[in-house]
């Protein structure tokens, strides 16, 4: 008799994931699936709208990384108005980068300090009532205060470049609509007494130290938990450097061999196929040349530090070297190292922000460029959670006729499923009851990807979960329920 366990995060908002684990007669895990019901219909929704609305409309896709969508759509629209994103004026390019680094910084900080640090500070199996940001504030008030100010700093960078902390309008097709003011510069560099651009770099380093000391004490767990090999993909700069905003696509296998390199992302559809599976709204993309079973890949911090050759900011580069040395230069498949990679990127973003703020191009210079109109454009950038694709076709009246998005979490779809399978294999196998701690581990495994499922991020501290153990007929044999705190 085969059995089915369903883990269902219940949320106060739309869009939630649901985990089903199938057991065979010997209670062995035969399959693990993460069902996702997000992003449905958005590509239809923008059809028939004037193309310039896309970069403002698509931000509504996500309350967590609206800036990534705003900038990615703008990059696609640059093509429509006849400019490539690397031909923008220096002012436009740098203002957009500043906005992007601000977003990266605040998003990574949110993830690490608010969502992941409770696991690290209190232990993955500790009481969920404490294992959340509220617990962190009580037990580590200094750290919590820094986390709050770091987020605030990132959000203020976004506001200064996009006009608003969320759902701004800064980037326009072919450019940007404003300069940074000297007053804003002063505020970020020295204006606020308790937080500024230099402190952000220091605090990002402190975050890294927090992870490293945790790693030292829990090496086996951190290295082993939900660890598996995969392919990886990200943008890299022409010289192979990490570039979060622009570059060519690079894909490598688990040994570090290049599958493709410096691919012009306008041609992404020649390299990536999106597979639809009946049980999830989220597609499963794979590298066309390798096929669906071998061609799945990971994106995000882990992937980026696997694909890039170096990081173009000194402190992050130093940390990158240590990080690479840990796996002897080989691609790193340890899912929990995602946090490590994320913190190195946080440091990189802080360094980039600090250096950009003193760049004169932000304060004067041409904002916008135009070329000859095209009917199609693809925009790609590295969002905090990984490579993000926006693809539009526009008719002669300027209305959108086609939109295709591959969001980062979609690229990580297969990997998240495998992570759940890993947990099920290790925790559940051979047992007919849902063991204590299983829910936590599923949560930790999925959370490493910082998926933009509302369920993973909207709940303070922990995902509310239901685990159902069912037999073939759907009869519930065992159930564990955990509400959000």
């Amino acid at each position, binding site marked *: 008799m085969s059995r089915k366990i369903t883990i269902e995060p219940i949320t106060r908002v739309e869009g939630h994931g649901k985990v089903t684990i199938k057991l065979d007669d010997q209670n062995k895990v035969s399959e693990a699936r993460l069902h996702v019901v997000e992003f449905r219909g958005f590509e239809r929704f923008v059809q*028939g*709208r*004037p193309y*310039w*609305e896309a970069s*403002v*409309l698509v*931000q*509504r896709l996500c309350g967590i990384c609206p800036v990534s969508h705003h900038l990615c759509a703008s990059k696609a629209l640059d093509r429509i108005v006849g400019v490539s994103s690397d031909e923008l004026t220096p002012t436009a390019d740098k203002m957009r980068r500043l906005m992007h680094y601000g977003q990266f910084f605040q998003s990574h900080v949110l993830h690490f300090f608010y969502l992941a640090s409770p696991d690290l500070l209190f232990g993955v199996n500790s009481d969920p009532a404490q294992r959340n940001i509220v617990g962190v504030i009580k037990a580590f008030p200094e750290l919590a205060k820094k986390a709050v100010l770091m987020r605030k700093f990132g959000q203020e960078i976004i506001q200064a470049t*996009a*006009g*608003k902390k969320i*759902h*701004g*309008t*800064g980037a*326009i097709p072919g450019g940007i*609509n*404003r300069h940074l003011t000297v007053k804003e510069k002063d505020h970020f560099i020295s204006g606020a007494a308790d937080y500024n651009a230099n402190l952000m770099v220091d605090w990002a380093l402190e975050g890294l130290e927090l992870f490293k000391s945790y790693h030292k004490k829990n090496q086996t767990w951190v290295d082993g938990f939900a660890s598996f090999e995969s392919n990886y993909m990200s943008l890299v700069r022409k010289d192979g450097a990490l570039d979060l905003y622009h570059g060519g696509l690079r894909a490598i296998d688990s040994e570090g061999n290049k599958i493709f390199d410096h691919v012009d992302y306008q041609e992404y559809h020649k390299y990536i196929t999106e597979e639809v599976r009946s049980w999830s709204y989220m597609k499963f993309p794979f590298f066309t040349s390798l096929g669906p079973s071998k061609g799945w890949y990971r994106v995000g911090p882990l992937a980026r530090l696997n694909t890039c050759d170096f990081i173009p900011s000194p402190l992050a580069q130093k940390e990158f070297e240590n990080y690479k040395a840990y796996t002897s230069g080989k691609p790193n498949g340890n899912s929990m190292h995602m946090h490590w990679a994320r913190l190195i990127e946080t440091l990189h973003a802080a360094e980039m922000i600090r250096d950009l703020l003193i760049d004169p191009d932000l304060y004067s210079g041409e904002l916008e460029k135009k070329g000859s109109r095209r009917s199609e454009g693809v925009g790609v950038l590295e969002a905090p959670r990984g490579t993000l694709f926006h693809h539009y076709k526009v008719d002669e*009246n*300027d*209305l959108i006729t086609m939109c295709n998005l591959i969001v980062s979490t979609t690229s990580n779809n297969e990997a998240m499923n495998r992570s759940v399978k890993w947990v099920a294999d290790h925790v559940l196998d051979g047992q007919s009851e849902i063991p204590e701690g299983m829910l936590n581990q599923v949560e930790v495994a999925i959370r490493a990807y910082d998926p933009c499922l509302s369920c993973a991020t909207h709940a303070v501290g922990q995902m509310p979960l239901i685990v159902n153990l069912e037999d073939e007929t759907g009869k519930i044999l065992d159930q564990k329920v955990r509400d959000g705190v």
Partner: protein
Amino acid sequence: MEQGHIKINIDGREIIAKEGQSIVQAARDNGIFIPTLCDFKSLQPAGTCRMCLVKVGERYVSACTTIVSQGMSVENESVELKENRKSLIEMLFVEGNHMCPSCEKSGNCQLQALAYRYQMTAPRYPFSFTQRKIDASLPYLVVEHNRCIQCLRCVRGVKAKDGHDIFGFIDRGGAIHISVDTTDTEAATEVIAQKAMDICPVGALIKKGGAYRVPIGERKYDNEVIGSDVEKERDKV
């Protein structure tokens, strides 16, 4: 009092008005704001939107079409009238499809600005969800029927060089919508598109290619409440 001037009273305050003026104009000259949507500068008033409803005696009248008369007593800022105005704004919102966050006119839209002034949070009426067309076939002009409030400002104010109409209305009742005379070559010009966008109080007429050029924070109503320009003059009067 000068020749041709009369005295009227708005909310208990006595003001001097010019004979032949509408209540809206007289109020404005005296630093009193009466909200309007269809009324526009020197255009012949149309009285289509009812935003400017005030009370004269026991009667509700539209202040943009009602001419002042000696001794007239006008109620403008009462709780009841404010509530009426808020309801009207809400009805305009539910009747159309207004997506403020992505609208090119956001921050410069009078409907949105009035919603802020009258502190509309969410409409109390059900949305009609009527899907209307967006017509972008002209080279410079987008007509977004989802956002039109049928104020007739474009019909009255945007004319061809020889004075004939470019915008008109077709159908009646719920099906009423504006139409553009595309047989007129001027309809296809950038000048007309700009004029149309400028005169439209909402985002129903949009000139192509200029969206979101004004950063958030620098748009017309980002920093001042609609009507505050009129009210600022009050102390000077």
